[in-house]
C-alpha cells in the first residue's frame, strides 16, 4: 500500500465559518492523504467536520466559510487556490461526490438518463445521443434493472435504493479519480445499505477510483475501508489501517466509539455510550477537545493539545496517553478484547509469514 501513488494530500487545513453568533472553528488543523485506489474512511459524530472537509476538497464550501490556512494538494495543484472555472472542471470529472439522501439529491423534473449523462456533456463535450448511450451503460453497471426502459423515467418513479444507484451512476460516469461518499447509506434501510456498499466495492475494483468514505457508522467502515481517520471537534484524533483502528485503538475517543458499537460479541445489557456532548466550536476548549468527556483525561489534556504520537508507520494517535511519561491506563474491557484479538491475528500472520518463508527456502 505504501508504494501506491498519493493523489490527494490535505495539509494543515483550517476552516472557519462566520456566523451571527461568532466565528465557528469547524476544521482545526486537519491533515491526511489519499492513495490511488484505496478507501479512506473518515469517521466521527455529527459536527466533527467530516462533511466540511470533503466540501472543501470539492470547492463547494458555503459562502460564509473562510479557509484560514493549509493546502489541499490534488496531484500537483492546490485545490484551494483554483479559480471557480478550474474547480468546475474538477468537479464531476476528477472528483465526484455521492450525497447522503438519495430521495432529495436528484432533480425531480429531469429524466434520469439526462441527469446521468449531464457530467459527460459538460466535461467531455459528448453529444447528447452518445452521452445517453454511455448513461445507459452506466445504469446497467450500477445495477438498475430494465435500464433501457427506465432511462426516460423521472426520479419519483424509483425507490430510495435505486435512486442512490442513480446518484452513484452520475458520480462515476466520468470515471473520477476520487469519489467522495458522504454517508451514502445513512438514509437507506439496512438491507439496501448492504447492497449499495457491495456495489461501491465492486465498482471501485472495476473503475479503480479512490474513495473517501464519510460515515458515523463504524460497522460500515470495517467492510469498506483500507484506512480510517477518526475526527473529533474539527480535528483528526487518530488514524491508521482499518485493523489498527478496530483492534488496536489508542485514542480514548476511538475507544468510546468502538465500545458504543454493538457487535456479535456484545453481551446483552446496556450499550455503552460516550457521556457529554462535543465542545462548542465557537470557542474550542484549550488543550484536548475531548478532555471534558474523557474518563482517562490527564491534567495536561486541559492545558496543552496533544501532538500525534506514532504507534506504527501507518498508525498515529493524538493523545497524551501515548507520551512515555504518561501513566499506564487500562482501556475498557471491549478494547482489551479487541487488542487481544489483534495480537493473535498478528501472531498468526507472523507464523504464516514464517511458514511461507520456510516454504520458499525449501
Amino acid at each position, binding site marked *: 500500500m505504501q508504494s501506491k501513488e498519493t493523489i490527494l494530500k490535505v495539509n494543515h487545513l483550517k476552516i472557519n465559518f462566520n456566523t451571527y453568533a461568532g466565528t465557528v472553528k469547524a476544521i482545526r488543523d486537519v491533515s491526511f492523504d489519499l492513495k490511488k485506489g484505496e478507501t479512506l474512511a473518515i469517521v466521527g459524530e455529527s459536527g466533527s467536520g467530516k462533511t466540511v472537509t470533503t466540501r472543501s476538497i*470539492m470547492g*463547494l464550501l458555503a459562502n460564509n466559510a473562510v479557509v484560514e490556512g493549509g493546502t489541499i494538494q490534488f496531484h500537483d495543484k492546490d485545490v484551494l487556490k483554483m479559480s*471557480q472555472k478550474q474547480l*468546475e*472542471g*474538477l*468537479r*464531476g*470529472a476528477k472528483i*465526484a*461526490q455521492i*450525497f*447522503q*439522501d438519495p430521495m*432529495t*439529491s*436528484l*432533480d*425531480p*423534473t*429531469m429524466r434520469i438518463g439526462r441527469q446521468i449523462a*449531464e*457530467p459527460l456533456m*459538460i*466535461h467531455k463535450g459528448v453529444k447528447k445521443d452518445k452521452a445517453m448511450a454511455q448513461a445507459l451503460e452506466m445504469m446497467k453497471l450500477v445495477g438498475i434493472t430494465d435500464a433501457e426502459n427506465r432511462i426516460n*423515467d*423521472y426520479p*419519483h*418513479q424509483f425507490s430510495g435504493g435505486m435512486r442512490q444507484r442513480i*446518484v452513484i451512476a*452520475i458520480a462515476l460516469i466520468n470515471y473520477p479519480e476520487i469519489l467522495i461518499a458522504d454517508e451514502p447509506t445513512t438514509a437507506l434501510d439496512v438491507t439496501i445499505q448492504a447492497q449499495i456498499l457491495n456495489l461501491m466495492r465492486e465498482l471501485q475494483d472495476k473503475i479503480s477510483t479512490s474513495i473517501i468514505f464519510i460515515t458515523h457508522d463504524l460497522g460500515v467502515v470495517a467492510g469498506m475501508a483500507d484506512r480510517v481517520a477518526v475526527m473529533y471537534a474539527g480535528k483528526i484524533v487518530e488514524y491508521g489501517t482499518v485493523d489498527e483502528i478496530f483492534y488496536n485503538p489508542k485514542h480514548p475517543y476511538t475507544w468510546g466509539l468502538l465500545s458504543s458499537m454493538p457487535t456479535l460479541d456484545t453481551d446483552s445489557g446496556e450499550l455503552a455510550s460516550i457521556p457529554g456532548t462535543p465542545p462548542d466550536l465557537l470557542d474550542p476548549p484549550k488543550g484536548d477537545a475531548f478532555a471534558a468527556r474523557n474518563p482517562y483525561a490527564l491534567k495536561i489534556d486541559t492545558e496543552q493539545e496533544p501532538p500525534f504520537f506514532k504507534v506504527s508507520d501507518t498508525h498515529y494517535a493524538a493523545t497524551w496517553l501515548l507520551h512515555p511519561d504518561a501513566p499506564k491506563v487500562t482501556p475498557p474491557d471491549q478494547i482489551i478484547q479487541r487488542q487481544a484479538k489483534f495480537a493473535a491475528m498478528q501472531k498468526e500472520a507472523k507464523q504464516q509469514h514464517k511458514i511461507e518463508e520456510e516454504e520458499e527456502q525449501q
Partner: protein
Amino acid sequence: MAKYLVKRIFYLLLTLFIVITVTFFLMKLLPGTPLQNQQKLSPSQQHLILKQYGLTKPVWQQYLIYVGGVFQGNFGTSFQFSDQPVSYLISSRIGPSLLLGVQAMIIGVIPGILVGALGAIKKNTWVDTTTTIVSILGISIPSFVLAVLLQYFVGLKLQWFPIADWGGFSYTVLPTIALAASPFADTARFTRTEMVDVLNSDYIELARAKGLSKWGVIYHHALRNSLIPVVTIMGPLAVNIMTGSMVIENIFSIPGIGEQFVKSILTNDYPTIMAVTIVYSVMLMVVLLITDIVYGIIDPRIRISGKSN
C-alpha cells in the same frame, strides 16, 4: 389526458351553472329597477315597460326563462343600449379587455420571474434588497393609485403616452402598466421565495458537484423547479387582473367589458350583468384549467397519469 379534460370541462360547466344561479338571485336583490327616469313615469307605464321585459313575472320564472335562453345561446338584450343584444355588446367590447389583460399578464409575470430569480441568486445583496423593495411597493400600491400617478406624471407632465381613451398601442401602455404592477410584484416575491428554497436543496448541490457552472445550475435545474409553484399563482393573478381591469378601464375610459360591467350594475341592466359575470367566470375557469395542465407539463410528479407507471 382526454378523459381528464372531459371531466374538467364537465366540472367547469357545472360550476358555471352554480355561478349563474347564485348571481341571478343576488342580482334580483339589488335595490332599484332598470328604469332610468322612474319619477316621470306613471305606475301603469312602469308596469307596462317592466312587463315588456318580462320583469313582472315571479323571480323563479324569470330565472327559468333566463337559463333556458342561455342554453340556447340567447343572453337577452341590454336594457341601457337601445335594445342591443348582449352578446353583441360583449363581443364588441371584449377585445380591448382581453388585449389589456394579456399584455398585463405578460409584462407582469415574465419580468416578475426574472426579477424574483435575480433576487434569489443575489440573495442578501443590494440587488436582493432593491427587488424586494420594488415588489413590496408593487403589492402595496393599489392599481387605481398607480393609474392616476401614471396619468399625471407620464401622461400629463412628460406627455409620453395618452392619458386616456382608446386608439392604438400607445393608448394601452399606461393602463397595462397600472394593471401589471401587482401581478409583477406577486410573481417576483413568490419566485424569489421558491428559488431561495430550491437553491438550498440537495439536487442543486449535486448539480454543482457535477461541475455545472453557476448559471448552468440555475438554468438547467433551479429555474424549472422554482417555477412549478409559481404556476399555481397564475390563476389568482388572472383574477387580480380581471377585477383590476374594471377599475382601470373606468379610469382610462377604455371601452372594455370591465367598464361595461360597472355601468350595467349601476343601471340594473340585468342581462348585461349576467352575461359579463358568465364571461368573467369562463375566463377564470379556463385560466385555472390551463394552469393545471401547464403544472402537469412542467412537473412530472403530478403529470396526469395513464401513460407512465
